[in-house]
């Protein structure tokens, strides 16, 4: 029993301690951080990042990477806004935006799985292509959208929970279920751990890999719709830099680039860390221009801390 408890503690990713310390530090230095409205705020801000990071996690589990997800997020918003502008019903336009992002994921998947391009090059190239497509279709402008349904998605409450948080949590739960109990999840872990075994077991590993990237694209699309709803607009650059946050959230949450280790579960901790960091900086009144460098440093620092702690505990175990 005691041993079991010890193991549980050891299994908590080191990031949890950082989150805890951050909460305490912000509690001291940023008055108003612990107010109910601010905590809701953190949740609402974290929701799209959580959805995006879930997509990044499943891709990283296959030993891949999706550097296009941030731009695809913005692209889904642009597609959605343009469809609304052309008189398409809002819910249908949302679906359209998400499918557009899924299409980007499909192209990524085909490039990686069928054409054997290195994932980071394929998705980086894709990011550039999508940036161009987004700029051309909007002339680089932000497309405004006004609708009551949008207000509901971005600010409404259902069952006492704000909609973006609810949507993100439902998706989180859904993907967690898929990863645990279905072939979808098993294939993803096999792709990262031992693709050869997956192929020999009769599963179509190419198709499984493509499906993974499509899922990541769809998730980026949903995140894009959440962002577009909150800002009531579609802009191609709205997800700029989010890919880094999403990847960082995965790594901090313990998903590694080697052999499909990790999972969607702890990614939520990485997301909370990043959301709390950003929110705390805002509440503490740090100017926007300082936040870029600070966030980059802190996130890299968190990754390093995580790697060092794991190394140390790994050394302890092997002793």
């Amino acid at each position, binding site marked *: 029993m005691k041993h079991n408890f010890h193991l549980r503690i050891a299994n908590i990713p080191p990031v949890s301690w950082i989150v805890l310390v951050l909460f305490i530090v912000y509690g001291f230095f940023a008055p108003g951080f612990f107010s109910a409205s601010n905590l809701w705020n953190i949740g609402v801000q974290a929701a799209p990042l959580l959805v995006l990071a879930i997509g990044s996690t499943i891709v990283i589990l296959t030993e891949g990477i999706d550097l296009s997800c941030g731009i695809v997020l913005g692209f889904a918003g642009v597609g959605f806004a343009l469809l609304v502008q052309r008189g398409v019903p809002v819910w249908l336009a949302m679906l359209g935006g998400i499918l557009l992002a899924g299409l980007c994921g499909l192209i990524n998947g085909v490039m990686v799985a069928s054409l054997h*391009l290195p994932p980071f090059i394929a998705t980086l190239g894709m990011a550039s292509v999508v940036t161009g497509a987004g700029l051309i279709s909007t002339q680089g402008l932000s497309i405004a959208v006004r609708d009551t349904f949008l207000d509901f998605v971005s600010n409404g409450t259902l069952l006492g929970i704000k909609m973006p948080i609810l949507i993100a949590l439902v998706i989180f739960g859904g993907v967690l279920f898929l990863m645990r109990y279905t072939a979808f999840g098993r294939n993803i872990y096999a792709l990262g751990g031992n693709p050869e075994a997956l192929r020999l077991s009769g599963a179509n590993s190419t198709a499984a890999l493509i499906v993974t990237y499509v899922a990541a694209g769809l998730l980026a699309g949903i995140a894009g719709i959440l962002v577009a709803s909150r800002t009531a607009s579609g802009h191609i650059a709205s997800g700029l830099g989010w890919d880094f946050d999403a990847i960082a959230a995965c790594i901090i949450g313990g998903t590694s680039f080697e052999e499909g280790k990790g999972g969607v579960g702890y990614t939520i901790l990485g997301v909370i860390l990043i959301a709390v960091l950003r929110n705390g900086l805002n509440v503490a009144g740090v100017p926007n221009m300082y936040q870029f*460098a600070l966030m*980059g440093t802190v996130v890299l620092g968190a990754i390093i801390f995580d790697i060092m702690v794991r190394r140390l505990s790994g050394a302890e175990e092997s002793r």
Partner: protein
Amino acid sequence: MSEVAESAGFLDKWNGADLKRFIGPLLRPLGLLALCILLSFLSENFFTLKNIISVLRQSTILVVVSVGMTVVILAAGIDLSVGGVMALVGCLTSQLIVNGMPIAPAIVCGLAMGIVFGLLNGVLICVFGLPPFVATYGMMWIADGLAMILMQGKIIFGLPDSFLWLGSGYLSIIPIPVIIAVVVAIVFHFYLRKTVPGQEIYALGANRDAARYSGIKTTKTLLLVYSLSGLTAAIAGIMMTARLDAAEEGMGEPFTLQAIAAVVMGGSSLMGGEGGIPGTIIGALILTLVVNGLNLMGVSSMVHPLVTGGVILVAVFFDIVTRKWSD
């Protein structure tokens, strides 16, 4: 008579593999030539000395960043921070000059900043074991953020003429940036091909474990590799600032992907250990010509990312296909 027989015998000895080995290295220069011919149809001014010099001048910044990127890719790494470092160094150097520092020390500070960022990349990768694209991607955001802080949302322009000379001066008819790019390329080419540390970079990229067992200090070599990339990014950033007579945060951004594209189009393998500077220069020239051609056709600059992205994807795809074909 005997001559004919001899040449027939000579041809007999040629099998498919030889043919591929013969044509392979020629493919890229031929592609460059084909592109030039295509462009000369698009614009009658293309094959004038003035335009050729102007294209060369346009390509110089990309050539310099790509040279450093080549070194990193040869070592089986990647550097996604070069665009951020270019902007940061440009902003730092011009900020120092505007605030009264003489030009030479300001440039030295800029170059030092580039090397520091390269070293940090190397430390994150070698010491902490981060995957190269995560480490350098993170450093890109830090460089961008520092540039933002340095500039406080402003643009610097109206730099002194002696600084601008680096970007727009001429030595008789040869632009100064062309001279800088040629010198950088030659130095790096000889370093990679003719010196022991250069050859160690190839060995490291081809097989890291084998390199370590054969006594190469892999950590030291990798630190050097990323520092060199930081240095060339810094040189390119200074050249860009001098050329534009302006420094602005985010101005180096498109160069990261373009540099990778130039290296891959130049035939260096992303798996490391294969390729070199001459190919990269051809790749950079092709990319510059493509952009030049788009401008000649009057295409909006918003299309550039689309084209760059498309070009890199096609280039990597062809690289993989031709590698399979020649195996």
